[in-house]
């Protein structure tokens, strides 16, 4: 037995039972695979990042009024049509799983002006502004835009790593929650070339995210 703590530590760390059997071939293969995955992910992230920056930059520049800053443009009701208990249709595609009280706003501009206002709204595309009365899960307003031409613009808020984003059958989606505007945002491009934008406004974060999930997962994959 050693006679002080330092010597005991030296002896301990140098003891043979810290050896662990490792297979150099297996480790080498695992390292190679992980490096390959990392490289692929890095390239993918770079490409997506550059594309988002480029398209987002163009969108921001286009939305800037002369000498002013970016602003949210009011939407029109477009071709939105929905009766009680029916799915809404935009650009020929159904928007499903809307809350029971959701109705197209009579005055879309006025509905969009109700506080909290949206921080982001595509300028073009087939759109609907829905008021939810009575509120469902705290949700009071839903905005859906399909096939916007300014589809690449960024979303406000904090991106969420939501499990349901992986259930969109190939559509590449981004969802964020923006506390200041009490709104959950979603945007996605589908493999068939459709572009979606959904904004769900409500005081309760869990409530608005649940409504967003329901609409997106039941509407986007089929397009």
């Amino acid at each position, binding site marked *: 037995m050693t006679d*002080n703590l330092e010597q005991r530590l030296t*002896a301990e760390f140098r003891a043979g039972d810290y050896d662990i059997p490792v297979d150099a071939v297996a480790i080498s293969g695992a390292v190679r695979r992980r490096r390959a995955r990392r490289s692929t992910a890095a390239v993918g992230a770079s490409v997506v990042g550059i594309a988002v920056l480029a398209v987002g930059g163009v969108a921001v520049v286009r939305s800037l009024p002369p000498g002013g800053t970016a602003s949210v443009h009011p939407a029109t009701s477009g071709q939105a049509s929905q009766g009680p208990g029916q799915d809404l249709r935009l650009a020929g595609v159904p928007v499903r799983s809307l809350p029971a009280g959701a109705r197209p706003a009579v005055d879309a501009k006025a509905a969009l002006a109700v506080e909290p206002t949206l921080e982001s709204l595509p300028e073009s595309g087939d759109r609907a502004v829905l008021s939810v009365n009575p509120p469902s899960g705290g949700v009071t307003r839903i905005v859906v835009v399909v096939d916007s031409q300014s589809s690449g613009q960024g979303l406000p808020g904090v991106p969420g790593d939501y499990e349901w984003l992986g259930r969109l059958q190939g559509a590449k989606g981004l969802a964020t929650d923006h506390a200041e505007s009490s709104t959950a945002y979603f945007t996605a491009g589908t493999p068939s070339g459709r572009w979606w934008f959904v904004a769900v406004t409500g005081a309760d974060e869990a409530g608005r995210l649940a409504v967003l999930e329901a609409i997106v997962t039941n509407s986007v994959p089929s397009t």
Partner: protein
Amino acid sequence: MAATTFDAFLQEALPGLARYANVLTGDRYAAEDLLQDTLVKAAGAWPRMRQDGNPVAYVKTVMVRTHVSWWRRHRPTRPLTEDIRAQDSGLGTVEDRDQLRRALAAVPPTQRAVLVLTYFDGADDAEIADLLQRRPATIRSLRHRGLQGLRRHLSSTELAGVAASSDHRETS
């Protein structure tokens, strides 16, 4: 002869690196994770490592830094298991070593890294400070706290006596 490829380097150095990871973590499974994380990082730097002429030291540096940062993100690890129990290798009683290992398992990772670099590698404060990107005074403080932590855990009268008479390096 120095290895010319990263695979050849692994063949030569892997047992020592695996052991070093185990000494650093004190947990075989955490050691395997740390080893892989380290090698994934190091593989990309192979040309530079080879040029520097001491790839083992380079990988160890990456490993220590990864371990310290990895712990920050993942602590705590698994609870103490049978794996931690020392085997009798003639360095003291099995009970003594078992007690020491359990005490070491409670030492925070940066302090443990300093203890390993000091008592396993024989590195001086300046070298450790450079490796961990801290000041030498911080290294002395970390070692002091690491040894104090060990003392607290070594509760038997015999080991407390051992601890009190030790650590002249700490106070010098």
